[in-house]
């Protein structure tokens, strides 16, 4: 049986760990609230741009653009959004597992795809597996603004325009609720699946013409899709971290409880033993 002092020191160290995890849980909770607010602030922009893009793409038959038409696929791009730091439960592992599985299923050699990594965990994962990481961004702030990501988004879209990849998929954790995140795969490029449910509400005049507008609008649209996924991913990251830390705190509490019980038993056993010894000693004297 462990000695009293051993148990005591384990209790103290577990208590300290639980204080840290508790603090991290609260930090993540407040970050999650802000990330959620950011994601909400972004929604109107997304809705508007989606409306305009679909009404132009559906509305004018003569409007064609390389980003709208699919071409034979020689190289696929995968944009993977992970976090920079760990301690976020299954946040990174679930996403990387799925990407890895998909890549192995779809491609025979490493030349058939390129990786665009946001976040250190994802970058390291692919680099250590000798997969080609074309672009990477590390150290995205917890509350990213569009400016933080615009250069990566721009270069990603350029990869497609310069035919360095012929389709682009994006993987991120979609924020469902504070306790639930969902690994999501979406195809960004070529742009497809526009909302065709409400056929063009308005026919627009184009100034100067539809092609030139698509030229500017579509890259901006694709970039904002990436930004939206990042905001979503950040909200999931903070909520995953919060849940992980909450579990850690709960486990620590349980451990402390069972250790305290052990400690008290050991203490009692020691006392009982001492009394028996005294009684035994007194009996021997008589």
């Amino acid at each position, binding site marked *: 049986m462990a000695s009293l002092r051993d148990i005591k020191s384990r209790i103290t160290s577990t208590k300290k760990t639980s204080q840290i995890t508790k603090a991290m849980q609260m930090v993540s909770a407040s970050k999650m609230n802000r990330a959620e607010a*950011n994601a909400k*602030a*972004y929604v*109107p*922009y997304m809705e*508007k*741009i989606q409306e*305009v893009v679909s009404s*132009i793409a559906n509305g004018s038959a003569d409007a064609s653009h390389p980003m709208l038409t699919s071409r034979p696929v020689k190289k696929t791009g995968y944009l993977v959004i992970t976090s920079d730091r760990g301690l976020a439960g299954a946040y990174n592992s679930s996403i990387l597992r799925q990407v890895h599985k998909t890549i192995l299923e779809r491609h025979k050699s490493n030349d058939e795809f390129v990786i665009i990594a946001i976040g250190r965990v994802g970058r390291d994962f692919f680099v250590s597996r000798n997969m080609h990481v074309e672009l990477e961004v590390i150290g995205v702030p917890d509350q990213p*603004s*569009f*400016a933080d990501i*615009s250069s990566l988004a721009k270069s990603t879209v350029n990869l497609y325009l310069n035919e360095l990849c012929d389709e682009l998929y994006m993987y991120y954790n979609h924020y469902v609720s504070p306790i639930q995140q969902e690994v999501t795969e979406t195809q960004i490029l070529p742009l497809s699946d526009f909302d065709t449910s409400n056929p063009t509400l*308005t*026919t*627009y*005049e*184009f*100034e*100067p013409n539809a092609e*030139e*507008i698509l030229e*500017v*609008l579509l890259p*901006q649209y694709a*970039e*904002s899709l990436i*930004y*939206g996924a990042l905001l979503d991913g950040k909200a999931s990251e903070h909520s995953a971290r919060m849940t992980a830390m909450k579990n850690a705190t709960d486990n620590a509490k349980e451990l402390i409880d069972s250790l305290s019980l052990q400690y008290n038993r050991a203490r009692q056993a020691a006392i009982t033993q001492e009394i028996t010894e005294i009684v035994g000693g007194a009996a021997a004297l008589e």
Partner: protein
Amino acid sequence: MKTIKVNVVTPDGPVYDAEVEMVSTKAKSGEMGIMAGHVPTVAPLTIGAVRLKNGSNTDYVAVNGGFLEVRPDVVTILAQSAERAETIDLTRAQEAKARAEQRLQNNDGSYDVKRADLALKRAINRIQIAEMR
């Protein structure tokens, strides 16, 4: 006078939302003024000022490219970034201007000239608008 609703929206959230009499913007093809009852239009914008006139009062918003979408009931401006004149940080804009100018002057090939040029334009635009408030 009839008014029209105007929204200026960026990825970081809505910037402007009000009823105005006239919106004037700088589109790629030239200056464009929009009043209530304008025909539905889409036009790309350049880096410049959006003037929102309501009676004797005029609001200014600095936009960095983006789009103008006119519908019968609402005008929407979608830009990757936009700032109202009141919220522009003048010192930061001046710093950005100085930085861009310096990059353009001693250009040793390490900077993208086009990017520095755009940054300079954005900074000048912001300074001009900030001075109009």
